[in-house]
């Protein structure tokens, strides 16, 4: 009998959900725009990384032939500045003016000259050019100083006691990890929030439209009711997750990761791995949504509680992103913490150990059971039915 009832609840909830246009939008629109924003964002980041040899155009006031030659040699295009450089920058007419001496520099002169960079620091787009020109100016400074020292019979090393170099040892894949760090978060959020609209309708919705009381008068054990609702919510979440993974695969496939020397895997195997990893999360999410939903009197009330679920996957995300290389095997046993690493590795084509899937599934079981038990216990309280 209980199986028949379970099937009745599952069928009713699925049918009801599919007809619920509002909940369908809440479920299936976020994956679309999240993946879209992600694709645009990553595409832009790749574009910036790829444009190391960008053309810098600046405006120049005054004269300093050797310095001008040095800048031009280093691919800086020099345009004549307007008459009032400060005013022009302030008004936004031009972004960046380099003000040099007004008098021409006599050949062989050793008088100190000045170079003033006029820019508006609140203008974000100018920082790249300013940084590059500043670097070239310092380089020119030490070059000319070196020549002067050498002309006096001293070693140029004297004016450079500390030689500063930068060496970035991050491998391409690690760089990829940094860029792809957001993908596991996005997928986890899809799994966490996929069925929120449906689960709220199954719980707070029953309370709000006063259908919970007649429902509970039927001879159905509370656990059967909650289990039926939970199964329907999990199925709906998995549908959302599938859409999310599909869209993400398309985005990853078309984004030009190779331009920055990255290999991002969108093989069917990797995506299956991602789906399998997210299944336990969907189970946890649906159970938590039901228990939070049953405690809510109305849709509005439920929204307050559900925001808690959005924050959940962010905690492990920030832990892992701010501490790269923090990974340890026990992370697999903490829902969503191990996912950050495993999902990223899957995307980078590194695969995942079989143990990870077992750990994800086994660690989800107690969370789901406790949440469902709590929901079943709550649903028959007079305060919930009549509150």
């Amino acid at each position: 009998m209980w199986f028949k009832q379970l099937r009745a609840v599952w069928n009713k909830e699925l049918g009801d959900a599919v007809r619920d246009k509002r909940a369908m939008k809440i479920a299936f629109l976020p994956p679309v725009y999240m993946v879209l924003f992600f694709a645009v964002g990553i595409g832009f980041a790749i574009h910036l990384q790829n444009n190391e040899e960008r053309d810098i155009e600046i405006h120049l006031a005054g004269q300093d032939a050797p310095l001008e030659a040095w800048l031009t040699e280093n691919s800086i295009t020099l345009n004549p500045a307007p008459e009032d450089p400060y005013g022009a920058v302030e008004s936004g007419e031009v972004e960046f003016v380099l003000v040099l001496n007004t008098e021409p520099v006599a050949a062989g002169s050793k008088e100190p000259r000045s170079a003033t960079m006029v820019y508006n620091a609140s203008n974000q787009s100018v920082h790249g050019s300013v940084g590059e020109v500043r670097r070239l100016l310092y380089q020119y400074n030490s070059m000319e100083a070196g020549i002067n020292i050498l002309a006096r019979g001293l070693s140029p090393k004297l004016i450079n006691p500390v030689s500063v170099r930068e060496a970035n040892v991050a491998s391409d894949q690690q760089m990829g990890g940094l860029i792809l760090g957001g993908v596991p978060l996005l997928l986890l959020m899809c799994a966490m929030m996929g069925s929120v609209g449906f689960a709220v309708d199954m719980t707070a919705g029953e309370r709000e439209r006063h259908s919970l009381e007649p429902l509970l008068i039927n001879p159905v054990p509370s656990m059967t009711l909650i289990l039926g609702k939970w199964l329907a919510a999990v199925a709906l979440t998995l549908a959302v997750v599938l859409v999310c993974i599909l869209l993400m695969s398309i985005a990853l496939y078309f984004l030009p990761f190779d331009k920055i020397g990255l290999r991002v895997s969108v093989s069917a195997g990797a995506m299956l791995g991602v789906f399998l990893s997210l299944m336990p999360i969907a189970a946890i999410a649906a159970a938590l949504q039901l228990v939070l939903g049953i405690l809510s009197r109305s849709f509005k009330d439920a929204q307050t509680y559900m925001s808690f679920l959005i924050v959940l996957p962010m905690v492990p995300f920030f832990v892992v992103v701010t501490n790269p290389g923090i990974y340890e095997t026990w992370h697999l046993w903490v829902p969503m913490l191990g996912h950050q690493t495993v999902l990223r590795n899957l995307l980078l084509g590194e695969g995942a150990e079989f143990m990870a899937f077992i750990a994800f599934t086994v660690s989800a079981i107690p969370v789901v059971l406790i949440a469902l038990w709590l929901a079943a216990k709550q649903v028959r309280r007079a305060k919930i039915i009549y509150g």
Partner: protein
Amino acid sequence: MIEIEQISKSFGKVQALNNVSMTIGNGEIVGLLGLNGAGKTTLMRIIYGLLAPTVGTVKVDGLNVATQAEQARLQLGVLPDGAGLYKRLTARENIAYFARLQGMNEAAITDSTDQLIDILRMDNIAERYSDGFSLGERMKTALARAIVHKPQHVLLDEPTNGLDVITTRAVRALLRQLKSEGRSVLFSSHLMYEVENLCDRVLIISGGQLVAGGRVEDVLHSAGCNSLEEAFVALSQAEVSHVV
């Protein structure tokens, strides 16, 4: 048979029901009368087991509602106060869902649903989503949903609320039919003529206590009044002034 034995219920300091006992036999229609807040709905909720009494027991065909809740509920068909429908399901789907939860098989569900749709004149709304139903249409659907599994005992909280004359008559006919099949009906109402015409017995509840019970004539006699309305007002007011 439904046996209600010495039921008391308090919410904090408020005593909603005080030592109420009654029996509802098979094949009888019993009307429950009371002013707003007298305790009718609380009593109903305790009978169908969603509210636990502070003291006392309720037995449905010998099954204790508190300890054998699911078996007891199999015998009950309940239209609670303000019952809500699933607005994205049609009237027929709303009825069938509860029938399935009652464990009926599909053939029986179709038969029983068709019959109720016919009796309650619901042909025009049967295949419509219940979103946008009028109060009367909602009541009819909720009523059909409550008794689709042909329960032995039927509890109805103001079942003719919001129904038009034609449908009210149909509901009355339905209740009489249930009675003739040997089922018991307990319904609460504010409509005196309805109770007078339909019920074998009347129970008047006031201030959480049963102040009168019996056949309509007996109640009139004990109150010394000519009409049920006068008797009801006199009994209810007496209790209210007594309580104050």
